[in-house]
C-alpha cells in the first residue's frame, strides 16, 4: 500500500496548501466557537466579557432553545424515514437499465439541482391556499384548501414535503449505486429456486443493501439536523414557533439579538450532537471496509 519512496519534502508541498485552508476555516472556527461560548460577546460592538459557563446554564433554562431543538429533532425523526424510504422505493423500482428508467430517474432527481430559494419560491406558492396548486386541487375535489404554512398542524409536514420533493432524488441515487453493487449471481441462484420478487427483496436485496442503507440514513440525519433555508424562507419559524429549528435560533441569537457568545454555545452543542452521529457513520463504514 505504502509508496516505497522516502521523499519527505514534496509531501509538504502537497499537504500544506490544503492543511492551511483546513486549519484556518474548519478547525480554528471550532475552537473559536468553544472560546466564544464562554463569553458574553456583543455582535455590534464586539465588546466581550468572560462569564464562564453561564451561556450553557442559560441554554438549559431557555424554552426557545428547547423548543428549537425539539422541532429540529422532530424534523429529523419524520423526514429521515420518509426520505430514505421513498428513496429506497424509487431505487428498487428503477434499478436496472432501459431508457424509461433513465427518464424516471431524471425526473425524480431533477429538483435536487435547484437551490433552496427556488424550492421555496415554488413551494411557497404551491402551499398558498388561494394561489397554489394544492389549494386548487382541494377545491376541485370539493375540500376546503389547507392553510399549509400557517396552520401548526400542517406547517412542519409542508416543510417535510418540500424537502422530500427537493432531495429524495439524492438518496435514490446513493441507493441505486448500492443496488448495482449487489452480486448478480445471488439472484441467479434464487431464481433457480423459483422464489418471488418479494422474497428476493427480503432475503437478498435488503440484506446486501444494509450497509448502504445505514450510510444513507446517517448522512440524511446529518443533513436534516442542519435544516435552515427551507424553514427560514417559508415560515420564518412560525406559526407559533412550531417550525423554528436550531440553526435558525442560532442565527437569530447571533444576528438579531446580538448575542454571539450564546449563539456559539448552542452551535457547539449542535456540533457535539452531530459528532456523535458522525462517529456512528465512521464506525459503520469502517466495519465494512
Amino acid at each position, binding site marked *: 500500500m505504502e509508496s516505497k519512496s522516502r521523499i519527505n519534502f514534496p509531501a509538504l508541498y502537497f499537504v500544506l496548501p490544503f492543511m492551511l485552508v483546513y486549519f484556518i476555516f474548519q478547525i480554528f472556527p471550532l475552537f473559536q466557537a468553544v472560546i466564544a461560548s464562554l463569553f458574553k460577546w456583543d455582535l455590534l*460592538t*464586539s465588546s466581550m466579557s468572560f462569564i464562564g459557563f453561564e451561556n450553557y446554564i442559560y441554554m438549559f433554562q431557555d424554552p426557545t432553545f428547547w423548543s428549537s431543538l425539539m422541532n429540529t429533532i422532530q424534523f429529523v425523526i419524520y423526514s429521515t424515514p420518509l426520505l430514505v424510504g421513498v428513496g429506497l422505493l424509487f431505487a428498487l423500482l428503477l434499478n436496472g437499465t432501459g431508457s424509461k428508467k433513465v427518464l424516471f430517474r431524471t425526473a425524480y432527481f431533477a429538483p435536487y439541482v435547484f437551490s433552496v430559494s427556488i424550492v421555496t419560491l415554488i413551494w411557497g406558492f404551491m402551499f*398558498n391556499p388561494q394561489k397554489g396548486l394544492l389549494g386548487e386541487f382541494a377545491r376541485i375535489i370539493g375540500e376546503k384548501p389547507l*392553510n399549509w404554512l400557517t396552520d401548526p398542524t400542517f406547517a412542519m409536514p409542508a416543510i417535510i414535503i418540500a424537502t422530500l420533493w427537493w432531495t429524495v432524488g439524492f438518496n435514490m441515487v446513493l441507493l441505486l449505486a448500492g443496488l448495482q453493487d449487489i452480486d448478480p449471481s445471488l439472484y441467479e441462484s434464487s431464481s433457480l429456486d423459483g422464489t418471488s420478487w418479494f422474497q428476493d427483496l427480503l432475503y437478498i436485496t435488503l440484506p446486501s443493501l444494509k450497509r448502504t442503507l445505514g450510510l444513507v440514513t446517517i448522512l440524511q440525519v446529518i443533513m436534516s439536523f442542519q435544516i435552515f433555508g427551507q424553514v427560514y424562507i417559508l415560515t420564518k419559524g412560525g406559526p*407559533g*414557533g412550531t417550525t423554528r429549528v436550531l440553526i435558525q435560533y442560532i*442565527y437569530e441569537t447571533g444576528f*438579531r439579538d*446580538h448575542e454571539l457568545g450564546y449563539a456559539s454555545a448552542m452551535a457547539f452543542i449542535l456540533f457535539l450532537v452531530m459528532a456523535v452521529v458522525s462517529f456512528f457513520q465512521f464506525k459503520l463504514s469502517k466495519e465494512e471496509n
Partner: protein
Amino acid sequence: MKKLIILFLCLTITLPLFANGEAEQQSGSEEGGVVVLELARFFGEPDDSLMDSTDLSKANSEAATIQILTNIFNEENKGEIRVEKLGGSEWGSFYDQLNTTFAANDPPDVAVMHQSNMPAYASRELLVELDDYYTEYNLNPSDWTAPAKKAISYQGSSFGVPFDLHGNLLHVNVDLFKKAGLVDDKGVPILPTSTEEWFEHAQIMKEKTGKLYWVEDATQFPISFRLFHTLMEQQGVPVVNTNTNKVNIDSDAGKKALQFMLTRFEEGYSDPNADYTAAGELFMNGEAAIEMNGTWVVDQYSQELSFDYKAMNFPNLMGQKKVWANSHMWVIPKQKEGNRQYEAAMKFCKFLGDHVYEWAAGSGHIAPRKSVLEELSENNIPQRANYAETASNASTFPPVINYSNIETIIKEEVEKTWLLGNDVDSVLQQAQKRVEAVLEN
C-alpha cells in the same frame, strides 16, 4: 515549475481576499468625485417600471414613493452624490442584515430605522448624534410633532430625521357594514366601543352578510403583538414599564386582552390562520368587513378596491383611546475614519425630511411635521381626515434595547393560544418569563 505552481496556488488563495474588483466597494467610496452613499432600507421595491422613475404622481405605495424620492435626489445631485440601496429589501430580516454590516465594521451611510429599534444602536454609540446638524442643515425641529421628537431621541440626544408616524388602523368595507345595518344616519360605519359590543356587531355581521367581521395577520408578521400592545395600553397597563423595569404581561390586563383576542377566533368571527397576504386578500375580496393593518395600505386600498372603502381609527375597546404606533426615521451610522461622509448623508436625510409630505401622501403614513399635517388636511388627501385622531392616540413601545426579541416572543406566545390551543394563563406566564429573561440579559 514547482515553485511556480506553489506561487500560483498561494496567490489564488490569498489574492481574491483583497482584490475583488467591483466587490471591494467600501462604504463611503468616491467614484470620480461622486460620493456614493449606501442606503439601507426596507419598504420593498416597486414594479420594474418605476425603478428609474422621477414622477411623483406615480408614488402610490411605500416602495414606489421612496424609490422615486431617491431617484429625484440622485437626479438633483448628479455628479456629486449618488445614493445606492444596499442589501435585500425584505422587511422581516432587515435588522439582521443591518447588524451584519455593523459587525463587519462596514455599516451603510444612511439607514432607516424604527423608533422601537433605534435604542439598540444608539445605546451602543453606533449612530451619529444629529443635534448639531439640524441647525446646520436648516432642519426645523420646532416643526416636528411631539411624537416625532420623542421617536428620534434616546437619553437626551437626537439620532434621526423623522420620516413618519404609523399605527394600526381599521380598514373598513363600508358596503358590508351597510348591508349589516351597522351604519349611522350619515352612512358612516359604527365601530364597537367595548369588547361586548364587538361580539354583538360581529354576530350581526355574520347573520346579515355571512362574512367575517374582522381579520388581521394572525400568524406571520408581529401584528398580533401590535394588537396585544394596543389592548394593554387601552387599559393603562404598559407591556413593559421601563421606569420600574417591570413586565406586566402576566396580569389581569394581559389576561383580559389575550382572552378577547382568542375569543374572536374561537367564535369564528376572525380567521386564526390568516397570514399577511391572506388577511389582505380576505378584505380585498369582500370576505371580511374589517382588516386591522397599518397606515401603509391606505393609498393602495383607496385606489384598488371596488367597494366603498374607509380607513378608520382603531376603536376604544378597553377604556382609553390608545393604539399601537411606531415611526420611521433616517439615521447616520458612525463610520470608521476615512469612510466618513456625514455631510452627504445629512444632505440626503434632510432631503427626505423635506419630502415627508410626498411620503405621507404616497403611503398613508402620518407626517411628523406640524406644517405638513396642515398642508395635507388642506389638500384633502383621500381618507386622511378619517384617521387623523390616530396621531394623538398613538402609543409607542417604550425604549428598550432588545425590541426585536421582545416583539417576537410576545407575538409567538400569544399566537399559541389560537394556533396551538395553549391556555391563556400559561401563555401569559411563559411570555412574562421570557421577556423578563431578555430584559435581564
